[in-house]
């Protein structure tokens, strides 16, 4: 045991003594009142998460049931979003598509952000040759349009859900590493880190107990703003035929199917794309609000 935890406790006591006590729910309500758009974003994502979890219970028809109706029906009470070119119920496909989008977004952003945070912490704290090596690789990845990187990775790995998750996750590593590294650089020169070092704390201890907690909040904000980007990326890849392969109800794939089968059925093209837009909008609103609440300095930088 070192003495650092006691220093922390002292700080906590002081803070409690100075700050007036407020009910946590009340301050949450305040935050919500100041960010109405953020609340809308949160509600959108909350509802979509429920749709994703209970997709089979919500969808009236099976995803693969092409005898759900006649081909290219207009919206009706039986088929809320109409039917597609083969007679699938578009509403059921959109509902199941929520699962695909959410899964890809959470896994790719989660994986990418975790790797990037570790790399960023190492790069920022170690400095020297390790830092240079990591940063030159980051430079290379950033010097390249993300969509092209995704297309090439998808082509190399072959189209599948795992491929999309891995490719999108990899594409996020470089930019997030850069931001985390910047945060670590400004953090490592703070006095509390110096104090910990003076008390004889080892490098891993400083990294895990002192630097990481301060950087993780930042990483979570970035991750939220990236979830929308991940959904757009998956949809674009699937639209181009290099994402989630055909029988799966990916929103991007369904838009491309609607585009590829004249005479066009406009409803069929509208609903899957609208689902993408609403989901991404939800994540963007939520991400903006989180960023404004936790770190207003980031405004305009992400």
């Amino acid at each position, binding site marked *: 045991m070192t003495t650092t935890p006691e220093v922390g406790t002292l700080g906590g006591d002081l803070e409690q003594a100075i700050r007036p006590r407020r009910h946590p729910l009340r301050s949450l309500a305040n935050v919500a009142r100041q960010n109405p*758009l953020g609340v809308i974003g949160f509600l959108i994502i909350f509802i979509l998460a429920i749709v994703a979890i209970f997709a089979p219970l919500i969808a009236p028809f099976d995803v693969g049931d092409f005898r759900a109706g006649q081909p290219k029906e207009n919206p009706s009470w039986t088929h809320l979003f109409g039917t597609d070119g083969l007679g699938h119920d578009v509403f059921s496909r959109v509902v199941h598509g929520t699962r695909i989008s959410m899964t890809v977004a959470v896994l790719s952003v989660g994986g990418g952000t975790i790797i990037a945070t570790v790399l960023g912490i190492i790069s920022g704290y170690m400095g020297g040759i390790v830092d240079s090596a990591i940063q030159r690789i980051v430079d290379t990845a950033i010097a390249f349009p993300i969509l092209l990187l995704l297309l090439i990775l998808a*082509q*190399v790995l*072959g189209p599948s859900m795992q491929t999309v998750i891995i490719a999108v996750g990899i594409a996020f590593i470089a930019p997030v590493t850069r931001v985390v590294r910047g945060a670590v650089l400004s953090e490592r020169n703070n006095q509390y880190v110096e104090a910990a070092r003076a008390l004889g704390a080892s490098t891993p201890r400083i990294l895990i107990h002192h630097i990481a907690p301060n950087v993780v909040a930042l990483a979570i904000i970035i991750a939220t703003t990236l979830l929308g980007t991940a959904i757009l990326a998956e949809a*674009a890849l699937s639209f181009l035929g290099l994402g989630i392969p055909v029988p799966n109800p990916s929103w991007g794939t369904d*838009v491309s199917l609607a585009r590829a089968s004249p005479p066009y059925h406009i409803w069929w093209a509208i609903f899957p794309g609208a689902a993408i*837009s609403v989901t*991404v909008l939800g994540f*963007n609103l939520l991400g903006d609000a989180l960023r404004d609440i936790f770190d207003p300095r980031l405004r*305009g930088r992400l």
Partner: protein
Amino acid sequence: MRAYIIRRLITGIFILFILSVVIFVLMRLAPGDPAVLECGLGASPECIEAKREQLGLNDSWPVQYGNWIRDVSTGDLGVEAITHRPVIDTLKDRFPVTLELLIITMVATIAIGVPFGIISALYRNSPADYGVRVTAVMGLSVPNFWLATLVIIIPQELWGYAPTFARSISFTDDPVGNLQQFVPPALVLAMASAAGIMRLTRSSLLEVMGTDYVRTARSKGLRESLVVSRHALKNSMIPVVTVLGLQIAFLLGGTVIIERIFALPGVGLYLFESLLSKDFQVVQSLTVLVGAVVISMNLLVDIVYAWLDPRIRYA
């Protein structure tokens, strides 16, 4: 400054080197064999073997890489696998298409993004501000391939209007036809970048409006319109110019989707088609070319940045 530019150029070349190695290895890990592609399905082993030999695929990777880099550095981007047409010839046809698309996109991005961003900042928290902000976040949320699809199929279904596809109309032959062909895809591509520029212009101008020198300008009795136009606007545009330059990488990626949907025979579509047909040579050379364009743009942005903002000095 000169030392800085030279250092950046050296770094740039180093980055291109890493990029070339990565893309070279990736293309060789990709499933499929360009030789099989050329001989067709069910081709005889002799044909495949002969093609592999001819394409140099039987050499070791370092030899193949060395040959490729030697050719590229002398301006020879190689030939297409199936047609044997030099890549540089196809690029000469296709580059003007992508260039025109990007120019119109950039003009639209600035013409939409900057004025609305300024309005949003000047009338902060007014209905106009909320309107601009909500529009901007929507612009960032709507996928461009969906908007492009709707732009094509809705007029066609409702009014039977179909744009010209698959060949590009030259501006000098038919300016109206040319613009009819390029403006819709450029506007779709500009949606997200205009939304980003709107947000950035707003936050940048708001920041500048809060600075001491703007307060000084106001307190000496200057009219608000002059405070904004003479003092605030110029400085608030510095980050906007920077981001406009950086968006080139983002837009280059977008051209792949937009050129495909609108069937515009540009560089993005060329790269995509080559990637699908596993034409190693073309994908490799185009990738390095795109990387070089992006790196040069980034350097240019930093130089312009220093020129616009005398406080910035590169050592």
